[in-house]
């Protein structure tokens, strides 16, 4: 069943609270001062291994149970929305691929596509195929890291190293095409900078087979582990209506059972998803395990998509005809896309100069972590960590 999650749920956000009767004993304990243990306020972050970055989480604890959790963001605010106002369009891709640094290429594409739409240019088919392939490769890279990282947060060190190792398959391929592992800066208005290098298609085919193998490894080592299931099943459940109301998007929402993927349901933002045979994975549970499982399946699906694109890759030019000095005509445009972390969007307001007048960036992680205060209430401290890990946010994507 398809539901547009941006629609408000009837009745607003359901208020779910801890039963106050659970804490009735504390009211009586206040008579005897020695017995009133009080709550402990624990500061998780900004420097904490589980927040992979500088997220700060102020947690009020009763024993090991969370009574209230407050995420405090902004330690990594770099002001990209302001910075891009002082740069030309070709320069901006350098900045915006640092928003979500693990899948930088996927950040560039929608911005360039928005500028192309304002200019009325369409990239040639081969460039669109290359863009789609590299977007999916960066999705594979970031998800493979997640698949290992999640194991680490649950306590198994080994998958983390496997994740870092297997991510290299995708990163090496991106590096071979663009010259950069993390920050490719490869998209140009009207196409891409270079064609694929010699032998890349063959390498890519072999690497995708290895990626599929390593997905099997993760399924056996992590997802199939009974302790992992015990730790993640029915932990951190995001109800579908509530997730949609908070603006949670991407794999996090799909694992709550919402069959909604912008690659299929939205405007394809210049990519070739409608020409491929693929499937949107959902999971009905909405817990941490579901989020892991959905990302595992999506990694596989991405690898299969890349294999299909390698077979269907058209020949031809990689750049459309573009003027030497790029001036985007007046107008405004909104492009949203399916970033690996969720829905990412750019709203560009142009006054006809070489750079935009104003850009609003909608990043996925910002909305995804907004559900944390609701989600963490009543959880145990170890579950806080698994819930944080399974929501899979990037700090640069929260703070921009």
């Amino acid at each position, binding site marked *: 069943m398809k539901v547009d999650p941006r629609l408000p749920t009837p009745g607003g956000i359901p208020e779910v609270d801890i039963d106050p009767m659970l804490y009735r004993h504390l009211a009586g304990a206040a008579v005897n001062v020695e017995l009133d243990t009080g709550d402990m306020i624990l500061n998780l972050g900004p420097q904490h*291994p589980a927040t992979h970055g500088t997220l700060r989480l102020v947690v009020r604890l009763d024993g090991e149970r969370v009574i209230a959790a407050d995420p405090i963001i902004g330690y990594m605010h770099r002001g990209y929305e302001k910075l891009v106002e002082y740069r030309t369009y070709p320069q901006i891709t350098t900045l915006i691929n640092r928003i979500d640094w693990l899948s930088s290429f996927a950040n560039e594409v929608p911005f360039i596509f928005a500028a192309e739409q304002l200019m009325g240019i369409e990239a040639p088919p081969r460039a669109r195929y290359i863009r789609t392939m590299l977007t999916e490769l960066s999705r594979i890279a970031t998800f493979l890291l997640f698949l290992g990282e999640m194991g680490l947060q649950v*306590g198994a060190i*080994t998958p983390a190293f*496997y994740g870092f190792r297997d991510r290299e398959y995708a990163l090496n391929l991106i590096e071979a095409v663009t010259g950069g592992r993390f920050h490719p800066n490869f998209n140009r208005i009207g196409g891409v900078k270079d064609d694929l290098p010699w032998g890349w298609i063959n390498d890519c085919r072999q690497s995708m087979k290895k990626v599929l193998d390593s997905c099997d490894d993760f399924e056996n080592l992590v997802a199939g582990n009974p302790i*992992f299931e015990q730790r993640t099943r029915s932990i951190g459940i995001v109800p579908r209506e509530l997730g949609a109301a908070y603006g949670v998007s991407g794999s996090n929402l799909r694992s709550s059972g919402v069959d909604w993927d912008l690659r299929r349901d939205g405007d394809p933002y210049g990519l070739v998803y409608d020409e491929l045979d693929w499937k949107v994975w959902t999971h009905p549970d909405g817990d941490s395990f579901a989020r892991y499982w959905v990302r595992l399946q999506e990694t596989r699906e991405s690898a299969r998509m890349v294999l299909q694109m390698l077979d269907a890759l058209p020949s031809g030019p990689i750049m459309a005809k573009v003027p030497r000095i790029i001036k985007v005509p007046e107008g405004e445009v909104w492009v949203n896309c399916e970033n690996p972390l969720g829905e990412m969007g750019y709203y560009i307001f142009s006054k006809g100069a070489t750079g935009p007048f104003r850009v609003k960036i909608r990043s996925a992680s910002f909305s995804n972590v907004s559900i944390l205060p609701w989600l963490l209430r009543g959880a*145990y401290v170890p579950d806080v960590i698994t819930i944080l890990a399974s929501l899979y946010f990037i700090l640069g994507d929260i703070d921009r």
Partner: protein
Amino acid sequence: MSESVLLALNIGWGTTLAIKTVVVLAFIPAAALILGYTFLLKMMSHMQSRLGPMDPGGFHGWFQLVGDGIKFMQKEDLMPAEADRRVFALAPAVIVISTFLVFVVIPAGPRIVVQPLDVGVFYALAVSSLSVIGVLMAGWASANKYALLGALRAAAQLIAYELPLVLAVVGVVVQAGTMNLQGIVLAQQGGHIFGWGGIGNPYILTQFVGFGLFMVASQAELTQPPFDMPVAESELVAGYMVEYTGFRFLFFFIGEFGTAFAFAALAATLFLGGWAIPGVHGTTADVLGPIVLFAKVMFVAFLMFWARFTYPRFREDQLQALAWKWLIPIALVNILATGVLKVWVK
């Protein structure tokens, strides 16, 4: 090291004690280094495709451990301003002492044992659980919320898993008819499997349930994954050790791996026949015994570390449930079955 040898050399009581102390004290760091090098650095690197620990020094990264040692020496000895200074300083020593006391009773040959005790098993398990005091001291004295959470988790866990550990061993004690570790080894060496005494009767054949329980419980006593909730590095950073640096941290490290060696040695002695080689007695056994015991210890430690590198960790309530709902009932049934069979078969 036996009494007879020392008496023959006409050495006084005080000197004997000094020699024994030095031997055990020297053995703990050695044991910790051997396990740390073999399993933590080399086996883990192979299992996890790690490149770092295989690189320093050329051949197989042999320099890594030395480099780690130098690093620990160089670190500043920090103590939190709010810390309870005496308790903070004493805690690592308490943990190492509990390991030290276990090594006293483990026999490595017919005459190679520091102090043979008639209550050997009881003593070894009792002193090994002293480390929980050190853990609580460290967590409380650090004046750190993460350390406190870690210490409380450790206390709850160590107490819960003390029971299955002891109950797992009771089966062996019943079968051997003695609590003396030397006696248990001799009982295994002289045992028979359906009347055939070719390899003695290592108790793993009859007490395999006990062996499994002992391995699980000792993993929890060592606070290793899947039972590493007290030091859970992804949430509590390092649990009760979070405020320790440099040499004091090294003490915790030595304590952890020394205890791993001690538990592996206990498991090897109780279930795998200890130092015994079938048909070898006397001085030959004294020479070969330590080598055989060492090989068995390394095998048991391999199993321990294999689990450590494979599993994610249980949550605190889940591991309590595992101990009370599964391990202890199984251990009790095992004791009952052992007792019934012992009476019935004889």
